[in-house]
């Protein structure tokens, strides 16, 4: 089932945007209020619940020991999946992940993987035989738009909350997951000619294009994804990239603050 929107709401949103306004009075580059709570799930090795406005997601990290991939025998393995469970929206259905959930999981995964977030070499126990597997499971509870940022931020915060359960598996002591970089995704939606950050559901429904830019603390790009059928010109993409670096930095400070609190 597809998300639908009434003509009158659609026209209202267009009219507002033409005047440079948004439905909830935010600026074009303004996030909704972000709330991150780590350590939320006792049965997980690490977890984070992220509320981005009314969008609500839980990310849980589970770890296990398994075989490495043949081409990276000395590195741990990350497996990322997203579940758009029917609890979260009248339009989600039960069943195996469909293409939107798969794209979401892959975009978050790319940020973590290409951003070199986890020191994967330290997760090797026995080369070619035994390495740590990290399962990143993203569970959407309430869907009010922009799952890419909510899940990406949640995955990052949950990884930083993770304790590797060495004792339980008899391979050494428990220790925090070795983190190299803190990456943050920011997602822009293009509605006609207007770019807006962190679209809420009504805005997402009328968006023509979507661009997610994931950056690290050095201000480098680590992953990007353009979605939907709308098109961007080079200047628009550059504008998103520059904004993403700035906005990413403030979210990064928030995520870092959470793990410092813990220490």
């Amino acid at each position, binding site marked *: 089932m597809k998300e639908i929107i009434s003509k009158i709401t659609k026209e209202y949103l267009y009219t507002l945007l033409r005047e440079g306004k948004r439905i909830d009075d935010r600026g074009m580059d303004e996030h909704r209020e972000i709330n991150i709570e780590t350590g939320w*799930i*006792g*049965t*997980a090795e690490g*977890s984070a619940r992220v509320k981005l406005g*009314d969008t*609500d997601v*839980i990310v*849980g*990290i*589970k770890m*296990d020991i398994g075989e490495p991939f043949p081409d990276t025998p000395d590195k741990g393995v990350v497996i990322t*999946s997203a*579940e758009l*469970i*029917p*609890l*979260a*929206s*009248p339009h989600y259905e*039960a069943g*195996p992940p469909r293409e939107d959930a798969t794209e979401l999981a892959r975009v978050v995964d790319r940020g973590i993987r290409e951003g070199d977030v986890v020191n994967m070499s330290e997760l090797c126990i026995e080369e070619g035989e035994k390495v740590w597997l990290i*399962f990143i*499971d993203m*569970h959407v*509870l*309430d*869907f*009010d738009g922009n799952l890419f940022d909510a899940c990406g931020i949640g995955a990052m915060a949950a990884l930083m909350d993770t304790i590797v359960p060495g004792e339980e598996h008899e391979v050494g002591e428990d220790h925090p997951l070795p983190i190299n970089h803190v990456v943050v995704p920011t997602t822009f939606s293009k509605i006609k000619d207007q770019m807006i950050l962190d679209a809420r559901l009504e805005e997402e429904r009328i968006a023509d294009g979507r661009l997610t830019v994931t950056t690290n603390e050095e201000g480098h790009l680590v992953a990007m994804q353009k979605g939907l059928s709308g098109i961007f010109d080079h200047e628009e993409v550059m504008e998103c990239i520059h904004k993403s670096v700035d906005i990413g930095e403030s979210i990064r400070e928030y995520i870092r603050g959470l793990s410092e609190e813990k220490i």
Partner: protein
Amino acid sequence: MGMDKDMDLIDEDGLRLDGRKFDELREINIEAGILKRADGSAYLTWGKNKVMAAVYGPRELHPRHAQDPSKAVVQARYNMASFSVPDRKRPGPDRRSVEISKLMSEALEEIVFVEQFPRSAVDVFVEILEASAGTRCAAITAASVALADAGIPMSDMIASCASGKIDGHVVLDLGKNEDNFGEADVPVAIVPRTGKITLLQMDGNLTIEEYEEAMELAINACHEIYDIQREALKKRYSTSIDSYEDLEEV
């Protein structure tokens, strides 16, 4: 049940592993109306269990051949998050959750005035975010509050609780180790206003006398839980009235 026991479940003072008495529930908290998209919702914590329930409907039922021209179909889905248990659970339904979903659907159908909504569906989704024994009882308890929060016409809510037997004693609301190492487990759900039983399972080994004792404990606890359910709804809707009064003052 049935795991080899390597620990005492009751200490010399007659207290259980977590310090509870035989007839004592774990702490239960319920909050109604926590999700925006759902028509009704509830978040329940029960000891270390964390459970979220959402209700959608009455709405059109797909596929159409599943529609019932005389009544609504109540479809409950019990699902465990992969991170809700110590060893990661593979996402998706397994035999256990399919069975629980079926029992929940049947139990809830009894209290909903289904004849008022022919051809439609009332969907109930329950997510177990963290599991620590007794999740099916927690699921039904939370689902009932979410149904009421959705404004679905119903005769009553359902309250649910398990009792069981550990170290030869009949006790209420088994915790994790008690469930694994105990001798019997009896999950029960009742319609509190009539006292009728709407869910009953049992596994383990009980004498008839022990069964009667277990039922008495569970049913008393269900009434206690019913109060918590009603309080959650009152709290949710009294807030709305307060804000309405605020508006009038302006």
